[in-house]
């Protein structure tokens, strides 16, 4: 998908948000960016999206084709839906911005809503939906343009534990089916271990890659109860303890 070559970002107040980030995001990967607050995870995600530009280093996209409109889906920590629009109109938004009419786009919009378990909620306004449902609409909106790369910035951090588990399960199932490349920012060891095919551990001030772990959990929907999952969380915890400044 792309390579990051020594990417660095320094904010105007001289805080070094990112320092010499070099890694590769392979197509079809589910990458978790794991680290404490202030380690530059979100900044890195914004750079991947093209919403921020690095001060040093560069991004190299495969085949030298940088992504165009609709090639990148972005899910924020809050659902950030248009409050005046219903679920269908919110999911339709990226296609509408691309100049499509609702008539031609409706099948895709309905499909995507159904994929996220929102069939029957097309006409619900955001205020009528629960936090978990709003996040589902937000994910549907990010997926409706069939992006090559899906970027998620702590999307489940504000949800309760039960809702979070359901959404993690559903996201994992979606990824297994479509193999969309996903970069997922989180500060939860358990979330990273459950979802990711590779975990990039970042340390703060300056934001650096402290460790990378390739995960080899069984590719099934029962991995949460798999002994290998418990072993992986222990391994990630130990890695974090080793690399984090005291």
């Amino acid at each position, binding site marked *: 998908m792309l390579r990051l070559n020594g990417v660095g970002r320094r904010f105007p107040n001289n805080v070094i948000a990112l320092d010499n980030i070099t890694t590769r995001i392979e197509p079809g990967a589910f990458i978790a960016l794991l680290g404490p607050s202030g380690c530059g995870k979100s900044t890195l995600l914004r750079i991947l*999206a*093209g*919403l921020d530009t690095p001060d040093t280093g560069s991004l190299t996209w495969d085949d030298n084709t940088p992504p*165009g*409109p*609709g090639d*990148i889906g*972005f899910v*924020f920590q*809050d659902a*950030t839906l*248009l*409050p*005046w*629009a*219903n679920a269908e109109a919110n999911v339709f*938004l*990226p296609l*509408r*911005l*691309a100049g499509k009419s609702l008539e031609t786009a409706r099948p895709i919009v309905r499909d995507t809503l159904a994929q996220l378990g929102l069939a029957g909620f097309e006409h619900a*306004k*955001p*205020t009528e939906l629960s936090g978990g449902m709003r996040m589902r609409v937000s994910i549907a909106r990010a997926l409706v*343009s069939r992006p090559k790369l899906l970027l998620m910035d702590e999307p489940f951090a504000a949800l309760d534990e039960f809702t979070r588990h359901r959404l993690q399960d559903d996201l994992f199932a979606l990824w297994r089916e479509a193999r969309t490349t996903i970069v997922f920012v989180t500060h939860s060891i358990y979330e990273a271990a459950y979802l990711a095919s590779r975990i990039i551990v970042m340390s703060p001030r300056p934001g650096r890659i402290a460790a990378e772990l390739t995960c080899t959990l069984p590719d099934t929907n029962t991995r949460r109860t798999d002994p290998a999952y418990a072993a992986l969380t222990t391994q990630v915890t130990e890695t974090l303890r080793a690399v984090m400044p005291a």
Partner: protein
Amino acid sequence: MTSLERTAPIAFGLLGLILWQTAVSLLQVPVYVLPGPIAIITAFWSDHASLLLSLLSTLAVTAAALIAAASLGMILALAMAASRLARAAIQPWAVVLQVTPVVAIAPLIIIWVNQQFAALVVCATIVAFFPVLSNTAAGLAATPPELADLFRLNGATRRQTLFLLRLPAALPYFLAGLRIAGTLALVGAVVAEFVASSGGFASGLAGRILESGYRLEIARMFAALTLLAITGILIYAALGAFERMILRRFGAGPSGEVK
């Protein structure tokens, strides 16, 4: 709010009126100093055609000024949102207009604008447009940054961002500004009428008030005042209802709550 709390202001007002009438009657206060409620109602009834006609004239100025203020405030806010240069150029002058008392500018405007109705509308618009401008500008500036990012990621044009995101997000702010502008337009209309009345133009309620003052018809003056107060409350309530209706249809929360 319980039904007792709802009726409380009415009961309190009635009590005040009764006390007022009793005090005026017992102390035999002359009617040219302080008329009682009964004298005021009688004065209104004996002259209601002239008073209501004047109210209509004041209302026409108020309505025209409100429409002008809404359009002007919206257009200036859009210009300020579109370009930083326009914002820098407009903002100080909007504040200058806002802080200069309209009573002080009104004589000039009445000299400059030859048509009396138009002159009154201009004065009232100057008083009323600022809350629309500042609220709408604040609303346009308060677009959630994540949504702006989302529009950028999907290659939205400036036009799409304006019509699909920034304007709808600013709507609750605009409506809140409009509600304030409604009562200010009435205040501006009456103030301008006062100034115009001293120049001989006296079709509005301010003309009736001044006239009553000259003739020492204090009960009629009170009747005109009461009419103005009720009109102000009705304008405020009507615009509040309009605001709630639009926002309910639009699915956004109460004023300012955009997320």
